[in-house]
């Protein structure tokens, strides 16, 4: 997961709404490229092997056609057949060879075009599709990093069309539960500090030092939970 991506705009004054950028589509390289690579290579293998079969059949048909043209030069077997000379067969053969070459070239180009088009379209589609998985994971990763820094801020819902919604909801419930619990605990500490102040507990000596530390902790935790 890369961390050099734009941060969530939740705190921005003017909320423009997050726009997906093409450069941000590849969030989890190993996850996304693995799947894209697998499907693309699989498609290439299928297209390649079937394309080879098509080419072989076409080529075979062309060869047979040439053989038939060549057989015109053979002496006639009966009165119905006509004896063709090299002069008459030559142009037919030349035309057939050129036609076959043209057809074979067209076929190869068509197959290449279809193959490349397929790969491009498939890769783009898979990039978007895997992004819908990598996106929520990336978002959760950002929250994880905040939690690591002992910060339990607000969480925001996923974007429309994102996948792993169940997982994200589960994470959100967990995050909110931990946050609420810490907030409750922090409130209890706050109440204790208020009670100490109300009771006129001295802030000097060891007790005072501990109370100062607890107050600092309470303030920091408040900030972390806001």
């Amino acid at each position, binding site marked *: *997961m890369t961390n050099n991506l734009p941060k969530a705009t939740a705190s921005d004054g003017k909320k423009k709404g997050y726009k997906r950028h093409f450069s941000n589509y590849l969030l*989890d390289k*190993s996850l996304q490229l693995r*799947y894209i690579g*697998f*499907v693309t290579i*699989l*498609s290439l293998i*299928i*297209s390649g092997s*079937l*394309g080879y*079969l*098509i080419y072989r*059949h*076409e080529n*075979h*048909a062309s060869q*047979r*056609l040439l053989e*038939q043209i060549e*057989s015109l030069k053979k002496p006639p*077997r009966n009165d119905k057949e006509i004896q063709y000379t090299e002069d008459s067969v030559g142009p037919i053969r030349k035309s057939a060879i050129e036609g076959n070459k043209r057809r074979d070239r067209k076929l190869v180009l068509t197959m290449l075009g279809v193959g490349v088009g397929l790969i491009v379209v498939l890769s783009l589609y898979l990039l978007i*599709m895997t992004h819908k*998985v990598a996106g929520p*994971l990336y978002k959760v*990763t950002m929250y*994880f*990093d*905040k*939690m*690591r820094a*002992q910060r*339990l801020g607000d969480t925001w819902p996923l974007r429309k069309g994102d*996948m*792993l919604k*169940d*997982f994200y909801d*589960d*994470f959100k419930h*967990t995050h909110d*539960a*931990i946050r609420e619990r810490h907030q409750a*605990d922090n409130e*209890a*500490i706050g*109440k*204790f500090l208020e*009670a*100490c102040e*109300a*009771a006129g*507990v001295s802030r000097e000596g060891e*007790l005072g030092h*501990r*109370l100062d*530390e*607890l107050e600092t*902790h309470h303030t920091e*935790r408040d900030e972390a939970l806001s």
Partner: protein
Amino acid sequence: MGGPKNKGYKRSWKNLLLNKRYQLRFTLFMVIMSGVLMAALGWWVMSAAAESTSIGVDAIRDKRECVPPPKPYQDMQPTKSGIDLNTNELDHRKKQTEPGGKIDEVKVDMKIMPPKRKIPGADDKKADKKAGDKKPDDKKADDKKAGDKKAGDKKAGDKKADDTKSGDKTADDKKADDTKSGDKTADGDKANSPDGDKADDDDESGFDNGDIADDEAYRKWKASRKSQDVKVVLDVKVHPDFAKKAIAFYACRLERAQAIAGVRGGQTTILLALIAVGLFLMLGLTLYGLKMTHRVAGPLFKVQLYFAKMRDEKYDKVWNLRKHDQLVEFYEHFKGAHEGVVKMQQADIDQLKEIIEVADKHELASKSPELAATLEELKQILARKEASLDQ
């Protein structure tokens, strides 16, 4: 995991589908995409194969033209029994000398002219006309007349010819038929022809009105008709190389049919191979897709188990992922988050421990009931937090 003998967790096929929505979506996409690709390209392959097969079949047919053997031909050789066919108006309506003819097509038309008899009171011209004094070759006229006359000698001749045509009958049967027909014809003569009437009258009354010599000749002729027998021998002549050429022809036809079947069989083989490969591919992809996505869903599932524990304030030790699992980096981030929460918990515990210790030392609880209550609450929180880390 928790048993006395920790054998290590083994992946089970039952647990392969952890995140249905994600796993099925990705797997089905792969499977359907492959299926569509296979079907589209397979159709293209089959079109090319059909074209190739068609050209191949044409080439085989062209290359292996089988020369048919010479056809056996029949030569009809009429022979006679009791009648000289060369002189007695045996008409071959069709003498089959062409090769390949059938015996059924051979028709023999006999026209046997009875000896002339004089009928008193009738002029020669009329007699000639009525007795059928015709040329033997005048077949059409005969046929026409035969239809008009319904009787007469010609009819007897036709009958005989028909008998001959039937071919299947034995000589005895034929004779019997001839005899029958002769009788019948005689009756017909009696009934229809004026001459016949006369003859009948003669027979019945015993009175002879005509020339006795002529009658005698006529009777002889009638008697001779009964014993007439015509045989047609169909002599089938065969080309000397017929057997050899026939064998070569059928062997060539068989070889050609086999070659064509081989070419067409190739097309069927391609179709079956495509279907088999397609099905195998889709099945394999389904299994592989599920396994592949399971390696993503597995870590997510594991993280979700830890989420549940964290919600219940249980901060277990986070174990590493299994070998080959994906989202290792993501999992490391989770571990960091878990660690952060544990640190928060630990910091709270440290703070609470210290303040409670100092508060107890200075007997803060005695200073006010409110203070005592909040201190008690802090003690409970501390106990709860300590418990959360003692898993």
